[in-house]
């Protein structure tokens, strides 16, 4: 019986054809999956087209060269908010990246026992902190140190760092864990102290992933509005000093333009949309930059 079956099956002509029902199921599932993919893409496409069509109107030289100082109605621009966003986010990056990467190195390379578990737990908790709470924290800290109601760009950076650090720790941790143990052993067996093997072997191997993790962190914070409204405040004028005075940022600029439309509401809405387009543009440029940096660090292959 078994022998005969085997001989029949080994004959290609008598191989069973694919059942029609299976073909149909395959087709149906494929269509459903593509439909859901399209559904997920729809809001994104809609968002992009809306922002571009409405934002392109005020995407002019004036928008990038003047602030809102003394502007009522049409005209004016967001150069102060663009600089504010770049400075506050940049400062947050300078604070978060070293702390986040160092914490990840500790967790992966040194962390044993209770302290590491506690740190992991705290990172998890920090990931869930509502951004307004981070803002209140920074507000409180600066009020205690510099007196109530103090507003500055660096206070905003610290609030944003609270949101960014857990993202950097988590992603860097994962990237460091991906570096094979063999690499660590190879370095140690060559007579390398641990710190030097981390610096010269493990961090370079994880660098592309760490860079994209940091960029992910920036994307997380660059659109934050609530904490900046609290601690960096808002101004119509240019302020390039993160340590002194209120500082405008793009998200807060969008909010205030939309919220305080004057009689010429079209002008205010136009500026808000253009600022939104600019914000998306910055995130896009960041992403491309991250990819380029990652490709550069990986060139030896």
């Amino acid at each position, binding site marked *: 019986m078994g022998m005969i079956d085997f001989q029949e099956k080994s004959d290609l002509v008598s191989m069973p054809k694919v059942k029609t029902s299976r073909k149909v199921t395959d087709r149906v599932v494929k269509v459903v999956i593509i439909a859901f993919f399209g559904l997920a893409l729809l809001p994104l496409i809609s968002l992009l087209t809306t922002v571009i069509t409405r934002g392109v109107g005020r995407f002019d030289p004036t928008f990038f060269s003047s602030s809102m100082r003394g502007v009522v109605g049409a005209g004016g621009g967001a150069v102060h908010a663009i600089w504010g966003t770049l400075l506050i986010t940049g400062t947050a990056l300078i604070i978060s990246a070293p702390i986040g990467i160092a914490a990840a190195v500790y967790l992966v390379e040194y962390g044993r026992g209770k302290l590491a578990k506690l740190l992991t737990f705290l990172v998890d908790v920090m990931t869930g902190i509502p951004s307004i709470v981070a803002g209140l924290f920074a507000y409180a800290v600066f009020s205690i140190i510099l007196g109530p109601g103090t507003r500055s760009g660096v206070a905003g950076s610290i609030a944003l760092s609270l949101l960014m650090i857990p993202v950097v720790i988590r992603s860097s941790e994962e990237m460091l864990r991906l570096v094979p143990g063999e690499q660590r052993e190879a370095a140690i067996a060559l007579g*390398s102290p641990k710190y030097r093997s981390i610096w010269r072997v493990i961090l370079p191997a994880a660098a592309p992933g760490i860079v994209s993790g940091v960029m992910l962190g920036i994307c997380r914070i660059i659109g934050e509005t609530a904490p900046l409204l609290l601690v960096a405040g808002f101004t119509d004028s240019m302020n390039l000093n993160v340590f002194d005075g209120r500082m405008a940022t793009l998200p807060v600029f969008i909010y205030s333009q939309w919220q305080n439309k004057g009689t010429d509401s079209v002008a205010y809405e136009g500026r808000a949309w253009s600022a939104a387009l600019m914000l998306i543009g910055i995130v896009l440029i960041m992403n491309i930059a991250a990819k380029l940096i990652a490709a550069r660090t990986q060139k*030896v292959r």
Partner: protein
Amino acid sequence: MMTLTTTEKTTFTASKISVSNFSAYYGRFHAIKDINMVVEPRAVTALIGPSGCGKSTMLRSINRMHETLPGARVEGSIRLGAIDLYGADVDPVAVRERIGMVFQRPNPFPTMSIKENVLSGVRLQGNRIGKSDGDDLVEMSLRAANLWDSVKDQLAKGGASLSGGQQQRLCIARAIAVKPDVLLMDEPCSALDPISTAAIEELIANLRREYTVVIVTHNMQQAQRVSDTTAFFHIDGPGLPGRLVECGATTELFSNPKESATADYIAGRFG
């Protein structure tokens, strides 16, 4: 001649390794027990035995790599010449500077070029090396690893771009570039094809003129081809520690084993 721009290191060359009453543990697990053996300088010593008999643990204990695993610890002593490698004031990093290691799977650093891989040991030990000295050292090490002729025109390419056998020779070049006294090899051919294996074995035959080589292998033919001395490790049962059954000149151990366990193993009756 090339000179390393470091303080001249006192050399242990031609010092024998003496292992006495040595035990190693992984947490509660007793991996090897009461090992006593002597590794002759400038010769090849093979550690053979069935899987799990502790031969790799023995090897990794010689350059204090064993203790880098969580929960690992040792008892007894291993001496290189007159120096107790496990002495209280001995820095394990200094031990590893003098006792190099080649692993089972080739593990060149993927972020470094071939040249940087060869120089990585010098740099990881915290030494700076000038360009011409570096070039000399790269050529010398790659020649010693029989790899120079095939990679001399592509030194800037990534170390991971080579074939498996070439990668392993690159790892050997990397290990000997720091001028160790002893070279430990943990089944260096088990991930390689027969042709690459033959190349590595030929290399080992050359290396023994300058280095003390200890090689772990589960290939008995390989042990006979490359080694001067063979040590046979064995476990008496699951969960029990590995022990050294006998150690002697390779030709003698394979032709005229003293212990019946050795005879059974080399005859292929188990393992």
